[in-house]
């Protein structure tokens, strides 16, 4: 028997790498929040969390639904069907649930696109869906192109275990950070120069962190680009139901259908109920692919990330209630728009401009005028001030790989109206102090 000793049993590179990204600024702010969280009653001076893109504005609608549907509040686990439920671990997923997901996705797009339930592969959250697609579409050492600024979690989700790289496609404020053909070409050429094989382009539509829906024109250009380069297109549409005016959202599915499904083997859509339906804890994500082999491979690979059958059952009931979903989508959009208008108005009064946005749970605000120097360091210094003095956790643009310093993402849907008002007051005060300092 060997005596217990200091372990020197080595771990893998995956385990010891920093690719989880939790040492970055994005997460440092979360830490500050965790250590000193705001609470109106017990900790009014605490840090307000504005770095979490979570939707809490429509919980009451869900609660009302459950109250009115006691069967559903059995959460799919009444004695009837329990046995089938408990044993069901088929990676095809529950037929009814996939059907409802497909219909819900169609509802969001107001019938402008159709979805075949047989092409839906369920995963435990969009995080898993994005990683799965990356495993399927790319080999270690290959890369995906992603327009900046992008969701910081991609650095972890798409690269950590897959060994796949990300090459940014730089967008600028000169045209509202829209993707241009030139930027796409530049990124592609850069990858070629580094001898890295480009396997696909990943778009988030509507964009996180910009809070804008991508225009039809840009989508057409993008589709032409990926076709010409013979690469894949992943369209992460998890915020599609959070576009304030539903007709302002164009899904890549619409373009595919308009083109008669020509060359659509390269198109894949990611969806989730975490944002639109405010149910991140349920862990429900989906891949929709027009490519049969991808559907097959994804289905098998989803064994590592199946959705609880109980959850599938429960949500199948809820989504089947068309009256509920129609009302929810409509009300949710209105509330998000109101919140958005409220915060952008408030920021304007404080002298802060935001990128005009029409979607999502956040806005993209420009604090470049406040920077001592237009660099990443300057931005992080300002960000640190905001977290520690104004006690607001917002996300710095550099963590989103934005090529211009001074932009910040501010979430507005993960808190009550009162908290939002407190946050705006703090921003106003902060701006006043900064101006005073600058004038000195």
């Amino acid at each position, binding site marked *: 028997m060997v005596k217990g000793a200091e372990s020197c049993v080595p771990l893998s590179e*995956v385990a010891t790498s920093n690719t989880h990204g939790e040492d970055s600024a994005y997460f440092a702010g979360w830490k500050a929040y965790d250590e000193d969280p705001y609470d109106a009653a017990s900790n009014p001076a605490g840090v307000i969390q504005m770095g979490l893109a979570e939707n809490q504005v429509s919980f009451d609608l869900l609660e009302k639904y459950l109250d009115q549907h006691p069967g559903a509040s059995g959460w799919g686990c009444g*004695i009837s069907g329990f046995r089938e439920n*408990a044993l069901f*671990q088929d990676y*095809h997923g529950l037929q009814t649930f996939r059907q409802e997901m497909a219909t819900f996705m169609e509802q969001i797009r107001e019938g402008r696109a159709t979805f075949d339930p047989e092409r839906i592969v369920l995963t435990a959250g969009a995080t898993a869906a994005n990683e799965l697609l990356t495993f399927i579409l790319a080999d270690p050492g290959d890369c995906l192109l992603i327009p900046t600024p992008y969701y910081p979690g991609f650095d972890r989700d798409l690269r950590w275990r897959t060994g796949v790289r990300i090459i940014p496609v730089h967008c600028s404020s000169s045209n509202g950070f829209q993707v241009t053909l030139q930027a796409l070409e530049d990124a592609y050429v850069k990858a070629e120069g580094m001898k890295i094989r480009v396997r696909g382009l990943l778009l988030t539509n509507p964009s996180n962190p910009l809070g804008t829906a991508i225009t039809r024109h840009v989508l057409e250009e993008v589709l032409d680009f990926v076709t010409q380069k013979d690469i894949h297109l992943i369209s992460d549409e998890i915020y599609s139901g959070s576009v304030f005016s539903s007709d302002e959202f164009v899904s890549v599915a619409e373009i595919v259908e308009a083109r008669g499904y020509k060359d659509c083997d390269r198109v894949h859509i990611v969806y989730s109920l975490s944002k639109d339906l405010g149910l991140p804890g349920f862990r429900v994500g989906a891949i929709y692919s027009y*490519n049969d082999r*991808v559907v097959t491979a994804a289905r098998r690979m989803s064994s*590592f990330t199946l959705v609880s059958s109980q959850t599938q059952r429960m949500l*199948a009931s809820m989504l089947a209630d068309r009256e509920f979903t129609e009302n929810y989508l409509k009300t949710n959009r209105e509330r998000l728009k109101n919140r958005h208008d409220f915060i952008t108005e408030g920021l304007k009064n404080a002298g802060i401009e935001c990128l005009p946005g029409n979607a999502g749970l956040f806005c993209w605000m420009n604090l470049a005028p406040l920077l001592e120097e237009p660099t990443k360091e300057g931005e992080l210094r300002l960000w640190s001030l905001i977290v520690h003095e104004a006690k607001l956790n917002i996300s710095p643009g550099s963590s989103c790989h934005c090529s211009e310093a001074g932009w910040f993402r501010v979430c507005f849907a993960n808190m009550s109206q009162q908290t939002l008002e407190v946050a705006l007051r703090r921003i106003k005060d902060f701006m006043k102090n900064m101006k005073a300092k600058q004038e000195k």
Partner: protein
Amino acid sequence: MSPTPSKKSADAAAAAATATQARSSATGLGGGGGGAGMRLIVPLQGVVQGRGGLVLGTLIPCALFYFLQFYLRRNRSPPPTSPQPPAANGPDLPGIVRSSSRNFLSARGSSSHAAISSRAASIARSCDSPYFVGTKKCSEDPYHPVDNPDGVIQLGLAENRVAFFYPRKSFILLLPFGGLIPVRSFLSIVVGLLQLSLDLIGDWLARNVKDTLLDERQGGLSISGLATYQPFDGLVELKMAVAEFMGQVMQGSVSFDPSQIIMTAGATPAIEILSFCLADAGNAFLVPSPYYPGYDRNIRWRAGIELIPVPCRSTDNFGLSIPALERAYNQAKMRGVKVRAVLFSNPSNPVGNLLHREALRDLLDFVTEKGIHVIADEVFAGSTHGTEDFVSMAEVLNTDEFDRSRVHIVYGLSKDLSVPGFRIGLIYSFNEHVIAAASKLARFSSVSVPTQHLLISMLNDTKFITQYIKTNRERLRVMYALLVNGLKQLGIESVKSSGGFYCWTDMSKFMKSYSEKGELELWKEMLNVAKIHLTPGTACHCIEPGWFRLCFTTLTEKDVPVVLERIKRVVDKH
């Protein structure tokens, strides 16, 4: 165009695909029942209210009451889903059902322009391995004692249904009023109801489910605790409840620390995440064989870790051999392959034997000497039915001075609590760095929060859990004995085993040739003539041909004679 995969990856793909097929459930056996429930309501209500016929007050009034609840609720809730044809259809591309708008696509032919990764390409092809073929046959022609007595019996699925009643369409058509039904069917109802009356979990839920989701603090149904982002590696309350459950299941000999637990959506991702943490692509694990076919997919596929089988021999009762481990380790070294861990299951799948304390200590000595990890897959720990006690790796660590940071346990509720659909697995590690990394990786395979809440309530009902564990073990014991003794009478011997849902059986004397080919031929005969799907030893990397794993947990006692008679059909020919 997609690159051609190497033969190695194609084999891996084949093995992985078969494992996948075998794992996926929803075979016809589970389907059962459906729309005709309406017809029963009035007569059953009559029975319960005391106006019933012969059955009332005689056999099982309680069971009938549960039975009634079942059908009443069934009629209130959405129509039961018809189970999807299982994964068997998956790899056959034409099997994907398409809406009319897709016909355009299918006419285009199968070559896609944008290539997929070699990892995915190798798995997207269909294959004909035994595991897959057998499961497909079961789904196409599923056995049912009344409706399809000549159908294929599934013995290849390690799923526990002894805790549930056997689904019978005949339930719906039959009224328990004595003379209206044939006695044989009546008996089948009785047996079924007896099992239903002991459907402990379903029953518990009927009584408790609503309470599991009310937020007590707010005194009403509150969704925020359920719906919002929670720690990806599981709620603290669930970890505590599961730690408690594990202690109970392992008969109180060791206690588990919730802070060492990382919850995952099933044991499948638990093993994969551990693999990602302990080794790099191209490294290897030593795995005593025969082993669970699913490991090939779970560990080789994305993590790219090689599995080196370390053969166990029937002469040793398929017990672990340290010299064999030593040999395998050295051979790998000579090939330039770095071994990072030993992976073993205990109770063993597919053999069902348990490792005793000495063997576990010897194993710990071995891995310590080599400077590698050890992964103990203990998913069947609570499913022991023999006289031996189960000893967890954690228990051995408890009493001895070993370097714990190399020890990792995989567990889950799919087997011991019969809830594989809920996706609840876990990594239990003694290594803080593994815990740190794995808790972050859990984000890709997180347990659904409402499911977590349901389990918290259920697991905290200790009286129920104690009863469940006891009853479940008893039933496993009964079924195991029935099957093994029955096989013995046919001249078929099984390894003496104490755990799991199966027996490990020697059918080599019925093979035409003592070879892998002979085994597969026998396997096919079993499938096509006896219409029984068993798991052949080759799928488990067993080096001695002729061994088969027969799972008995999807059967009822009544089915055993049927199974034996079918096997006799094949056996008599040899």
